[in-house]
């Protein structure tokens, strides 16, 4: 992945919000939703701000205690995962000038590889119609294939 590459949130299919230091992301097309804590939250925030991959890595290197190669490998792997989940897409628009990365301004935190906690329990909710596609008396459930409709 090129360091100059930039991504954007795959709106309007994907919505997200930062709350209590954790980003909650929902893919409205699939029903899957995600929790992005810690380093993952920082990477998501960088994507939302339109930063390049290289700049996101630089910011992480400035904020966390770990060697740059370790941080870059983990960040790139995470961004690839976000893209594979359909949460972000390449941003080919003209980039705005990026401010220089801030370094050494605060206490660097211990680094843990970013994690993407995925919840897919809404798939059944989405695949059946959540309001009406039921056996006329029940809350939504997927009708077994061999059950008459």
């Amino acid at each position, binding site marked *: 992945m090129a360091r100059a590459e930039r991504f954007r949130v795959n709106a309007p299919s994907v919505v997200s919000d930062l709350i*209590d230091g954790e980003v909650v992301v929902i893919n409205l097309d699939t029903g899957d939703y995600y929790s992005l804590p810690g380093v993952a939250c920082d990477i998501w925030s960088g994507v939302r701000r339109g930063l390049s991959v290289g700049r996101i890595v630089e910011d992480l290197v400035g904020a966390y205690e770990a060697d740059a190669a370790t941080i870059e490998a983990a960040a790139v792997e995470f961004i690839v995962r976000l893209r594979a989940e359909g949460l972000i897409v390449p941003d080919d628009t003209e980039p705005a000038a990026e401010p220089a990365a801030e370094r050494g301004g605060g206490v660097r935190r211990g680094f843990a590889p970013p994690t993407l906690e995925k919840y897919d329990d809404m798939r059944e909710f989405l695949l059946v*119609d959540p309001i009406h596609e039921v056996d006329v008396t029940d809350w939504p459930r997927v009708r077994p294939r061999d059950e008459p409709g």
Partner: protein
Amino acid sequence: MAAGLAGLLARAEHRAAPPLDYAVAGQRLRVHYADEALREVLAPALGHLREPVSGHAGLRLFVLVGAPGASAPALAPDARRPRVHFAEGALRGVLYPATGISGLLDGASRRAAWWVPAPERVPLAERSGPFRTVLGWWLAGHGLSIAHAAAVGTAGGAALLVGRGGSGKSVTAVACAAAGLGFLGDDTVVCASDPVPTAHCLYGHASLHAEDARRFPGLAVSWSGEDKVLVDLGARAVRALPLQAVLVPRVTGQPRSRVSPISGAAVLRALAPSSLLNVPGSGAPAFGQLAALARGLPGYRLDLGTDLEDVARVVASVLGGPRP
């Protein structure tokens, strides 16, 4: 397409029956049921909101037997999709192919239509929460969002109960209503986040599994399905209360109930996905409102015990204030 759908609404209006008027979260709703049998099936869930509308209604909703027909190709059944919906300008439409129920909202003319194939085949979920999708779209235009949640309250305020089906929302809401708390919904609640978080009651019925309903001998069953029943809680309904907390219930099997704090992110994960998927096309604005609720209200895990009176006590203790 817009002309065809506008024509549909005009024809629906031409066939309009005498209306029933409602006050929904401070908005005026006028519903024309074109069929008496349909009115008997769908009107009771909104009965507690009946109120004469003076002047223009905020929305005129025409409830019809049948289907939109060939003039609405955007609402043609698609076997690959469990529901079909579209948005074009101020027009929004939805079709639920499995039941043939469909709806259309024209935000510009403040008219909507809701088609049901046959009154005798209305599913329980539609009886307990009719017209949900078009009402959700309409209310979104007034800064309100529909939460997939239950809500109950005391004079101190309301608690939103969130979680997917089977988490215990309905039993908790009914247990609290039976114990004297105000009822604001067991599955759908209209929420406002501005100026203060507020829960508005939309539907006055709760649906319970039959075995759960037997735990409330003092409550009358208004309609029975195969394994679920409707309980009419309209007399215990409260129009609106300020929200004080969000509770995320889970069934424990232990006798006593208890609450423990959880993060706003955990609240949002429990609240937002099913709420957004429930009203197709609600998207980022609704998510922003739900996130504001999750950020601004204390959240608690509610470990549900088997003692239903204790459930109500624990919920009331979170809210404070006398029971309304």
